[in-house]
């Protein structure tokens, strides 16, 4: 009898093209997603070497990082951004790659549109020149970020040189409490693992809590695997996955045959992971980051820690530095921290369910007078769906700005940025120094927590939101 294999083993074995002695294995890549920031030098490399794109029909591109989220009919004011987007257009035309351009109804953040269009499917290998490619693992794919030289390599060969990563099972049992979301779950896990705890590993999230998550919640979890150092995160496909994919534009035409294949993907009973960690979902509370990396996180019912008490000298040093940058003092209750800005968006939390959750929280309220708040849907489809449900009205009536799809203030490559010293409750995935604007201070939270902070003007525990409001 063959040895029991994990989901990772099965996808890996299937995709190894060859492993010549003395070389790293060549892994076949099923889907390649491309955006404007990490691809121009790769296409240029192809041109210089006189090479083409091996499988343009497996390659999909969209501009997302640089795009303005205001009126799309106007030319892009930032000339260098415009040049980068024009370059993507020209490259896609020249090499025959499908582009979801700014005026395309399906444009959006690359990690939002991949699953939404059914481009992302179970059992596939998927890469993109972007570290949050881990998102696609939520559908049971092996999906990870690569650098631009590797983008060029995949364009030219449809393969990648890869050593097989190690496997880490994060098993989460039990149920999340009311008001506690997938975002809180992943922030909590990163806090426990540290920002490098997953380095060298692919995480498979398992357990009853994960099984009970809806598809979009699973994407939120897998999305942030990289913040724990893991290049990929994955969740075994099941009925939730198949129901999500059925009927999507790029879903296989013989869907039932595909499901029959996909049903064989989950790890076999007894398959061994190289490392296993177990967590209790019921113990997790809504999370707020206090520092400048996503592992510097605490429950909303807690206080900003005093890093001078940390045992590890590096954690102490980086904690002290982080508090200075964040303008915080150890011991401050999280709910006493006032916010200036609120950003609801990014590939972590800009899908329709995220917007519904945020809208439920703000319905009938007004954004606090000191706060400027914005909602940036993850894709054109999410935006239209939200508008069909009247969510845009809920946000606009409450005083939020309602924007066009893109990465926006997740990294502020477009005009959506924080001013120095501004403090932001953000549903994005990185609170690094300067990420949302030089000197800007980012606190990562769930959509409901961000929405509540917009109304209250400080962080609030959403578990008490209805008493509070």
């Amino acid at each position, binding site marked *: 009898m063959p040895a029991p294999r994990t989901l990772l083993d099965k996808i890996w074995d299937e995709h190894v*093209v*060859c492993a010549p002695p*003395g070389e*790293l294995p*060549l892994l*076949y890549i099923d889907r390649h997603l491309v955006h404007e*920031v*990490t691809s*121009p030098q790769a296409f*240029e490399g192809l041109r210089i*070497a006189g*090479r083409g794109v*091996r*499988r*343009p*029909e497996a390659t999909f591109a969209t501009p997302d*990082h640089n795009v303005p989220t205001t009126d799309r009919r106007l030319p892009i004011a*930032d000339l*260098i*951004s415009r040049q*980068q987007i024009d370059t993507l257009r020209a490259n896609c035309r020249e090499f025959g790659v499908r582009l979801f351009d700014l005026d395309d109804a399906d444009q959006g953040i690359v990690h939002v549109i991949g699953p939404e269009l059914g481009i992302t499917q179970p059992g596939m290998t998927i890469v993109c*020149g*972007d*570290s949050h490619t881990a998102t696609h693992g939520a559908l049971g794919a092996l999906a990870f*970020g*690569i*650098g*631009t*030289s*590797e983008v*060029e*390599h995949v364009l*030219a*060969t*449809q*393969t990648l*040189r890869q050593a097989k990563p190690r496997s880490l099972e994060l098993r989460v049992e039990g149920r999340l409490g009311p008001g506690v979301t997938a975002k809180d779950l992943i922030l909590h896990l990163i806090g426990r693992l540290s*920002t*490098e705890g997953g*380095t*060298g590993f692919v995480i498979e999230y398992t357990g009853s809590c994960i099984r009970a998550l809806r598809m979009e919640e699973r994407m939120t979890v897998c999305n942030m695997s*990289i913040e724990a*150092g893991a*290049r990929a995160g994955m969740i075994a496909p099941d009925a939730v996955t198949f129901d999500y994919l059925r009927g999507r*534009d*790029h*879903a296989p035409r013989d869907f039932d045959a595909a499901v029959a294949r996909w049903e064989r993907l989950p790890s076999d009973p007894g398959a061994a992971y190289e490392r296993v960690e177990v967590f209790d979902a019921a113990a997790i509370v809504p999370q707020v980051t206090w520092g400048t*990396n996503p592992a510097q996180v605490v429950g909303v019912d807690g206080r900003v820690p005093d890093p001078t008490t940390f045992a590890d000298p*590096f954690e102490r*040093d*980086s904690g002290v*530095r982080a508090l200075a940058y964040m303008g915080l003092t150890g011991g401050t209750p999280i709910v006493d921290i006032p916010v200036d800005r609120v950003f609801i968006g990014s590939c972590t939390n800009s899908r329709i369910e995220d917007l519904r959750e945020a809208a439920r929280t703000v319905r009938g309220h007004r954004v606090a007078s000191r706060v400027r708040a914005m909602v940036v849907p993850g894709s054109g489809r999410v935006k239209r769906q939200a508008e069909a449900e009247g969510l845009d009205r809920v946000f606009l009536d409450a005083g939020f700005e309602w924007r066009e799809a893109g990465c926006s203030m997740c*990294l*502020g*490559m477009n005009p959506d940025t924080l001013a120095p010293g501004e403090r932001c409750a953000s549903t994005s995935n*990185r609170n*690094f120094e*300067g*990420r949302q604007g*030089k000197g800007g201070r980012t606190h990562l939270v769930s959509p409901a927590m961000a929405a509540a902070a917009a109304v209250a003007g400080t962080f609030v525990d959403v578990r008490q939101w209805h008493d509070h409001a």
Partner: protein
Amino acid sequence: MQPFTIHAGVVAALDRANVDTDQIIPKQFLKRIERTGFGRFLFFDWRFLSDGTPDPRFDLNKPEMAGATILLARRNFGCGSSREHAPWALADYGFRAVIAPSFADIFHSNCFQNGMLPVTLSEDAVDELFQRAAACSREGRPLRLSIDLESGVVQVPEAEAAGRPFRHTFATDPFRRDCLLRGLDAIALSLAHADRIAAWERSHGIGAPPAPSRP
């Protein structure tokens, strides 16, 4: 790609853990469509004051670290975004190698694509290098290191002569090492297996492009 065999140079000591790629090259400089010219934006927010002049407190601006070609840092160097602009900026600034106790995965593989060597040493060895760098800094002179990729050895040449040897070995994936030593074109190497790639595609029903499922 520029081969890496033996390199000797001055060390810049950046005593921080978890240096992320947003710090190595902030996002406002990612809009260029070339691979070159990123060096002047390296560590931009740390290196320069708001008036654009160099911040004298930042390590890389210390006179004894001028012309450094080897960067020394603490654990989890290069975490965060996949941007290859990070090694491009380091290389363009003049670095040929980074030494740290651990690296983020994507940054680590991006280095190899650009003729830059990531050297993983133990926490203790890195700590000792920081102490030596600090001692040199107090005397206003640079710390020099030599790195031999073929034999996998890092040493302080001057220390040998002074009777305080520093010599540590490091491991590198043999394939990556070979590519770096010989400065090979990774794509050409992979295309040498084009028949295997085509065979894989045939066995998976991939031939002519599939008919588009929408107009």
